[in-house]
């Protein structure tokens, strides 16, 4: 039997799919984890500026070991570099960019996404868990477009795309598009539409691993 956690796109391929959908000239914030990979796949003819909420616009590639500076890090506290033309700023300015609607796209990880585009990605609500939210709630409240990149189901095989989130929300009605290892799914007012299926993945297979009813776009030959 096909294992839905193993087939379809790899992490890198998912990141590449997101990168293709980021228009030239965009200001983008990438969440911690798989979203960080997106920066590696932006087509060379596009200029995209990455914001990291701890105070840098113009985040560059990971530096060599010798060039690492513990005071030049991203939101995941990993060492990064700054591109030529970058700028540094304090946290209130950083979140003015985010909350003020100046960032075009944010790519985040997810624990659960609902049919309305509600996102849960900060807490399982477990009693003994240490709650930690970081900037996720500000990002979903203020950034113009929210993309989610995630495995289609959990390691235990439980669907992440569900009718209503059971975990505490990060934001309500905020996600525009979901990139999973199985498919790219648009969240529309009239339902969830599959934009693209991963190679050798069938619509019915994706539906089986998704609690929400999925639709196909008319005239989308990729899915037939």
């Amino acid at each position, binding site marked *: 039997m096909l294992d839905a956690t193993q087939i379809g796109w790899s992490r890198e391929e998912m990141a590449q799919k997101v990168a293709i959908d980021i228009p030239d000239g965009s200001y983008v914030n990438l969440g911690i984890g798989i979203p960080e990979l997106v920066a590696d796949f932006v087509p060379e003819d596009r200029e995209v500026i990455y914001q990291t909420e701890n105070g840098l616009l113009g985040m560059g590639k990971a530096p060599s070991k010798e060039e690492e500076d513990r*005071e030049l*890090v991203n939101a995941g*506290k990993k060492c990064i570099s700054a591109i030529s033309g970058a700028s*540094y700023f304090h946290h209130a300015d950083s979140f003015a960019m985010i*909350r003020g609607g100046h960032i075009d796209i944010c790519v985040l990880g997810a624990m659960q996404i609902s049919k309305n585009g509600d996102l849960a990605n900060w807490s399982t609500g477990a009693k003994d868990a240490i709650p930690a*939210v970081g900037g*996720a709630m500000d990002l979903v*409240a203020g950034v113009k477009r929210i993309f989610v990149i995630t495995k289609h189901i959990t390691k235990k095989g439980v669907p992440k795309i569900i009718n209503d989130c059971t975990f505490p929300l990060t934001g309500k009605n905020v996600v525009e598009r979901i990139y999973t290892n199985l498919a790219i799914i648009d969240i529309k007012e009239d339902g969830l539409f599959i934009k693209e299926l991963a190679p050798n993945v069938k619509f019915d297979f994706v539906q089986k691993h998704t609690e929400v009813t999925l639709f196909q776009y008319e005239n989308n030959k990729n899915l037939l």
Partner: protein
Amino acid sequence: MIDKQINSSKKAVSEIFDGATVMVGGFGEAGSPIELIHALIDQGARNLTVVSNNTGSGHVGLAALIENKQVKKMICSFPRTANSMVFPELYRNRDIELELVPQGTLAERIRAGGAGIPAFFTPTSVNTPLAEGKESRIINGTENVLEYAIKADYSLVKCHKADRYGNLIYHKTARNFGPIMCTAANVSIVQTKQIVEIGELNPEEIVTPGIFVKKVVEITNPAHESELVAKQMKYPC
């Protein structure tokens, strides 16, 4: 004559009193004023409310201040990080209070505190558990929650260069909460890698104007938290 230079961390933090609210700069170790925090551990003030994005790592810096039972309450956005054991254990045993605040709301509450704005409405956290019990209002068709400014008795901040007026510039992403914390504290105490002569800092490039700073201590070679953690160092030793 205005001269905000203090010749030791010990002297700089000596007046911090039991029960004070203390803002501590830094995002992880970047910008964390580790020498000032260690001086505060030596000084021993207790029952502190600490405002900081994280809760430190290993057994040095902010984590050591918490481990030394000097902190009654943390106000922060992300209390667990890699190598962060001290806070989680105390929190699970209910030996420390936590006020969890979204990072942007935390920054704006500090900014508001420094700018004389007592409270503000924000869409961040609406429909989440962090909005529960908060006043809300629909403004221009969008729901918002009321968030109150945070002010502090002291802030501990790390910068790159300072002069005796307290003008500051920072280093890369170590700036983070430093500038707003300087504005929101009654007494902001800053450790700097270098003190330069008046006039050396370009007025066009000064990030924190000296009016927001009360004390400046030169720490030429500050420790790196991650290196101390890698060596499994504990403070006090």
